[in-house]
């Protein structure tokens, strides 16, 4: 039913996978995600839809192998095999209205999810300036795709091994210091990075959209496990988001909630042979 049709290792622990899911591919809009279950007993893992092709019925995901489910998916599943479940597209699509110049920022794994957003923002007539950041040159991926989807592309690496040395937030600050137009900012990546971006743009009063990646179970608005404080309301990330106003997110609460299952996740890894193997390979 949900056949893996392509798989590529983009960098250490970063896997690009295309999956047959015709309904999802047809309905997908930028900013939405899907849920994958490797097997019947697996977790439901939320992953952003990084690309979709309604003609072939395929969707693309890019994921980092961080724990039991993502390691299993990356290490054990090959092209031609079927996944137990793929559900989507979920979440509220990113607003793509024409506002002028939009700076779209992707940090690390966030580079993949911004690809459809850049394309969408350009299609509605925005000028898209994209900043993508990686830790090192050898972890880079999809820079060519992002270049083609943007009017301007800035690449940063933490160690300066490619492009500008520093974080994506440094590049953003530089753009602002140069007085470049900036009507809206969209930032996707590790929560620390999104918070840094939101704190930068707050005094500039530039509307800033972030995409939250809380822990989820069903992804359909049923469990409340993904809830976060936004302004004075509690929102469910899977239905009300994942996009939110970065200036309203209760970041401390969000960080605390992401740590709930750390202990249990370590145990899950320990009980999975392929995960143990994976981490041993990493150590070597």
């Amino acid at each position, binding site marked *: 039913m949900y056949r893996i049709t392509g798989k590529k290792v983009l960098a250490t622990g970063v896997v690009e996978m295309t999956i047959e899911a015709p*309904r*999802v591919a*047809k*309905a997908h809009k930028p900013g939405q995600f899907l849920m994958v*279950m*490797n097997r019947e*007993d*697996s*977790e*439901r893992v939320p992953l952003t839809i990084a690309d979709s092709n309604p003609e072939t019925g395929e969707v693309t995901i890019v994921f980092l192998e961080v724990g*039991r*489910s993502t390691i299993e998916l990356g290490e054990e599943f090959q092209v031609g095999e079927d996944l*137990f*479940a*793929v*559900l*989507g*597209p*979920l979440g509220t699509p990113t607003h793509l209205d024409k506002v002028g110049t939009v700076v779209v920022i992707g940090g690390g794994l966030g580079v993949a999810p911004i690809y459809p957003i850049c394309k969408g923002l350009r299609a509605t007539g925005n000028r898209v300036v994209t900043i993508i950041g990686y830790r090192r040159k050898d972890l880079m991926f999809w820079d060519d795709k992002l270049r083609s989807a943007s009017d301007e592309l800035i690449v940063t690496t933490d160690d300066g091994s490619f492009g500008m040395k520093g974080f994506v937030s440094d590049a953003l600050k530089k753009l602002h210091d140069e007085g470049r137009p900036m009507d809206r900012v969209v930032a996707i990546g590790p929560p620390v990075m999104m918070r840094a971006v939101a704190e930068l743009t707050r005094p500039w009063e530039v509307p800033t959209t972030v995409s939250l990646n809380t822990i989820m*179970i*069903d992804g*359909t*608005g*049923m*469990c*409340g*496990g993904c*809830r*976060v*404080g936004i302004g004075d309301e*509690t929102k469910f990330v899977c*239905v009300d988001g994942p996009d939110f106003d970065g200036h309203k997110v*209760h970041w*401390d*609460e969000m960080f*605390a*909630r992401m*740590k*709930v*299952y750390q*202990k*249990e*996740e370590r*145990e*899950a890894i320990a*009980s999975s042979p392929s995960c143990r193997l994976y981490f041993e390979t990493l150590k070597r």
Partner: protein
Amino acid sequence: MSETIDIAALGGVKEGEKKRPRSKDRRLEIACQSVEDRLKNYDEVALGYSPAEAVAEAMRCLECPKPRCVVACPVHIDIPTFIGHVSRGHFVGAAEDIRKYNNLPAVCGRVCPQENLCEAACIINDTNPKNPIAIGRLERFSADWQFGHSERRADSVAKAPATGYKVAVIGSGPAGLSCSADLAKMGHTVHLFEALHKAGGVLMYGIPEFRLPKAIVQKEVEYVQALGVQLECNAVVGRTMPVQEVLDEFDALFVASGAGYPNMMGIPGENLNGVYSANEFLTRVNLMKAWKSDVGTPIRKPRRVVVVGAGFTAFDVVRISLRLGAEEARIVYRRSREEMPGRGEEIEHALEEGAIFTLLTNPVRYIGDDNGFVKAVEVQKMELGEPDSSGRRRPVPVRDSNYIIECDTVVVSIGQTPNVLIPSNLPGLATRWGSVIKVNRETYMSTVPKVFAGGDAITGAATVILATRAGREAARSIDGYVRDPNRGWYPPAV
């Protein structure tokens, strides 16, 4: 697979003989796992009647000519007839008879609040107080027997010739399953969309294994599929496909999307780690099987648990916590024991298993530790005042009565409301309180032509049997609608 039943040996009524009911006997208890054993597993607690026990219990029924029990059953199962079959050893016949009225007998026999329904009305209560016929247990016995002893049930069901009409059903809980089964029997093509990866709705993700084995739910699902219903899981109507697209493709649409949105109280500290909605807790444990050690979905092992509320859900949560090894599992409820809406048998079982009841008490805030994990709840004592609109006495706070209960897990079980996904994606669909779909109570038609709805989606959280009934009645109405050449059905008065 069929087995010969020696009815004489079982103490039942032989062919050609008259029944001599033994209504003075006490109602037969159902064998249960011992408390000690059941706290160590997730297996079903109530073990079911043996054939001899079922016959003995059936022998108590008077088979009343004007049965009050039938009136009290929401789907009006012909109780004297099916119990008559049991007392004569026609166990499969009993199940088939029940199925004429109820599509989910193995489920309802287990989870119906019988003590408020059929059994409350049984005439034997008048002469032999507190000893009504165990109708639910007999229903369960018959349905289980049929599962175990007759094959190819779906093929033997009389199905009308194909009509060519196509109906879409959204949601595979009891309402959706029941409606799909009936529509298929009427000869319609039925496509059943389910958002989750398993069909069954609350029966799968809510009610725990030790009350309702998931294998039984899946057998009912398979039965519905065997009738020809096309089940599509992982399909969230309104996301995976627009509601309008489904509407264009089908002759009618039945919305049975349930009441799955968890209510929270909106008090301080609710977003602390360790504070769950009942749905999150139940979904992790039931649907994602977090109670097994070898699955991917984790659950934090609770040590001291506070469960807020006292409905079906609250008792399920408290009993799961005890099975997960909690040292202390406490129900905190703002009214008293009499007002508890939970099912009688479950309240008893929870008490036996060691649940603590802290009644006439309500949480006012949750207190967290430095890492954002809940460590205590501040509660306030309540007293009962004047009756409110539900007829129950309204709890009012007692001044200066606050105190602290230490805990590491809180599960908020104060009810669910329907999800807004379908209403917000279907222009013209009228709702109450923003999410409960309004329908005409006779036809189940909503304010949008060709869209029908039933179950928890139109009532808010209710019961399995009411959802099952809505599915069945809606199927009848949808059948009339699709066959009507004009389809000029009245815009419903709601």
